[in-house]
């Protein structure tokens, strides 16, 4: 449930509750109003009567029948009204009604006193409900006035009361219907209209309030999808420019906080990239700087070797120099290994350059594997290892590849397999199209790789530091495999290994048949790159 929906539902619920409360309050208020006006009118009426006639008790005592007729005459023009004359204890002495009251019938005096209080303006209530002697089951609005006997002495206590009952039951029958028609329906419509208008208005406000939030979500979503690279390292692409501009409200501050966070991320990302660039540059420069001395050293040693090979005619001097020649051979082998390692480092740095581009050509990967097998055939035969290409019968695995790099990756894998496999092993190369991808496998029946070394196998700086290299290894398989992995990545694929101690090793290259981005089209450079190793 969105915030917008929640807020809208809240507004609608509030409106409905308000409408219901109003509708419930209208009859209550009307009834109260009716009671109050009735009471006020009755009170005024009683005041007029008691002012004009101050000897009501005496009149009643003297001529009960005439008094009753007189009472009836008083209420003749006051509809729904009955008058009663009470004594001080509340006993009904006379009544304007027709009903025969039992002799000595009393009404409760509490409402009478309350009515007197209200008439004098004491208390919060504006009307009083009391007994209706004719209908004991229901309360009615009453009013009362004290009446006194005409004596010489001024008597404070009332000797009786003139008691008025306004009959609710005698309201006109159609009055409720009239009320609901004249007040209820318009009120209901008005209330419904107000609620609807308020809801609409609230919806608009909610939309306005949540719009920056939605924009912010969209902007952050865009960053998540495209990554920080889109921001670049340059100052112009500031996150504030990409985030929705919002006012100074809470959402605006949230957007601002996001912008700050993105700015921090961008700065750190730029710093990381810069560091990575420096690292690559450092490795590249180091590799470069090491090349010249290594070139000189290799050339020196090779010159010495050639020199002695040429002077080998003299048997005596050859025997004499045997030890020295062996030492030079050792120096030369190790220097060449160092040179290869330096070259690999430089190549890896080059493959890591963001600007590096593949030179793709469409080739039959199966043919390429055949050719690679030929390259290694002599060495494999010398080591007593069977090197073969397993061909699937299906369509030839044509793919768009950088031939040099692909061959280098496979050659590195074959080189590794030959390096670690004892005589009698088999190394099988195969390429096939599986699910629209090129699957290249280099499988050997060699000693395998321990499970704890597998996760770091392609990690260039971890290498195989924890275990001892075979004596023939030139830099181990660490860097070679790092290059394999990088080449697979450059092609938009991956390199994976399955192996266990004693069960051989299978390295798989999983590459797309076509470049993922169509812009890296096939190049037609007339010269191939040199510098493989």
């Amino acid at each position, binding site marked *: 449930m969105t915030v917008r929906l929640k807020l809208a539902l809240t507004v609608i619920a509030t409106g409905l509750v308000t409408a219901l409360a109003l509708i419930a309050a209208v009859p209550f208020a009307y009834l109260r109003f009716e009671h109050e006006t009735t009471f006020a009118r009755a009170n005024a009426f009683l005041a007029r009567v008691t002012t004009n006639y101050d000897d009501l008790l005496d009149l009643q005592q003297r001529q009960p029948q005439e008094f009753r007729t007189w009472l009836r005459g008083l209420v003749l023009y006051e509809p729904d009204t009955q008058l009663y004359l009470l004594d001080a204890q509340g006993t009904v002495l006379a009544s304007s009604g027709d009903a025969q009251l039992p002799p000595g019938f009393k009404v409760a005096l509490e409402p009478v006193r309350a009515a007197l209080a209200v008439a004098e303006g004491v208390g919060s209530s504006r009307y009083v409900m009391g007994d209706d002697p004719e209908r004991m089951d229901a309360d009615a609005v009453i009013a009362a006035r004290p009446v006194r006997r005409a004596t010489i002495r001024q008597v404070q206590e009332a000797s009786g009361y003139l008691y008025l009952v306004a009959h609710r039951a005698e309201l006109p029958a159609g009055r409720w219907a009239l009320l609901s028609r004249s007040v209820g329906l318009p009120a209901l419509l008005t209330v419904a209209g107000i609620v609807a208008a308020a809801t609409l208005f609230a919806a608009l406000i909610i939309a306005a309030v949540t719009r920056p939030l939605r924009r912010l979500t969209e902007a952050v979503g865009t960053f998540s999808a495209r990554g920080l690279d889109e921001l670049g390292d340059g100052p112009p692409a500031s996150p504030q420019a990409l985030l929705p501009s919002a006012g100074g409200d809470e959402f605006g501050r949230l957007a601002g906080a996001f912008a700050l966070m993105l700015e921090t991320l961008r700065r750190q990302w730029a710093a990381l990239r810069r560091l990575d660039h420096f690292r690559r540059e450092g490795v590249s420069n180091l590799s470069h700087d090491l090349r010249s001395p290594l070139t000189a050293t290799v050339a020196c040693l090779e*010159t010495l070797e050639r020199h002695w090979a040429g002077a080998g005619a003299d048997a005596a001097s050859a025997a004499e120099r045997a030890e020295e020649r062996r030492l030079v051979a050792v120096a030369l082998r190790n220097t060449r290994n160092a040179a290869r390692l330096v070259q690999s480092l430089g190549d890896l740095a080059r493959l890591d350059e963001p600007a590096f581009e593949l030179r793709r050509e469409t080739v039959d990967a199966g043919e390429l594997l055949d050719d690679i097998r030929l390259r290694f055939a002599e060495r494999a035969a010398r080591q007593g290892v069977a090197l073969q290409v397993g061909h699937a019968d299906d369509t030839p695995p044509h793919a768009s590849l950088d031939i040099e790099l692909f061959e280098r990756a496979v050659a590195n894998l074959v080189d590794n397999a030959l390096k670690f496999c004892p005589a009698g092993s088999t190394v099988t190369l195969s390429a096939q199209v599986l699910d629209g991808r090129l699957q290249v496998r280099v499988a050997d029946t060699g000693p395998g790789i321990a499970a704890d070394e597998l996760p770091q196998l392609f990690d260039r700086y971890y290498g195989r530091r924890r275990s001892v290299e075979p004596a023939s290894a030139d830099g181990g398989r660490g860097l070679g495999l790092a290059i394999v992995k990088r080449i697979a990545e450059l092609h938009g694929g991956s390199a994976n290994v399955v192996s266990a101690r004693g069960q051989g090793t299978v390295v798989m290259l999983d590459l797309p048949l076509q470049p993922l981005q169509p812009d890296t089209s096939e190049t037609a450079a007339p010269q191939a790159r040199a510098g493989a190793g």
Partner: protein
Amino acid sequence: MPAPATILVAEDQADIRDLLVLNLRNAGYRVEAVADGAAALATQLERPAELLVLDLMLPGLDGLEVCKALRARASAAPILMLTARSTELDRVLGLELGADDYLTKPFSLAELLARIKALLRRAELLRAAQAESKGPARVVRNGALEILPAKRQVRYRGVSLEFTALEFDLLLHFASHPGHVFSRGQLLDAVWGYSHDGYEHTVTTHINRLRAKLEADPMHPELILTVRGAGYKMREPT
């Protein structure tokens, strides 16, 4: 026995320069050595050597500029460029400024000598072909394929086609030995003039290009065929 070829070495690092001179002399060449680009250009213009070995990163005028200046003066002597950086190599390859071959440091002397020998032989062959072109033209035919080695022209099914120098040499080699299967190593040796592990992909790339230019469907070639597990051959004319 022809007179030994003259080689000009331009390398700023004295140790490497001395070693190059020593080994080239031992291999029977006459060698001149300079330490910077300007001297290399001046020496070559004054006493043209038959081949130049240029370091790419020379002080003053760098190897590329020397190369450019020489080609602008119509000097045809082959140039072998030495580079220390793979990234520089990319620049050289991208610019195509007329160097004939490239070698990255650290290289082995054997490889350097093989490259130099191959470059000199190619230059010699080219001269021979040009000399021959004055006489009756030799034509190599293979079905619809017609090659005039002297003019370095190729016609296939009556259409004239353009090839780079190495593509032409490779095609000529195939056409001269129809039906003969060559491994990539043998082709590298015969056409490029040296066989060094790690450069076989160059052959694959060039065969790919030949097929792209000659075959109706390069993925199902009919002229330059693959012999699985052995190498490549040109179809014999029927």
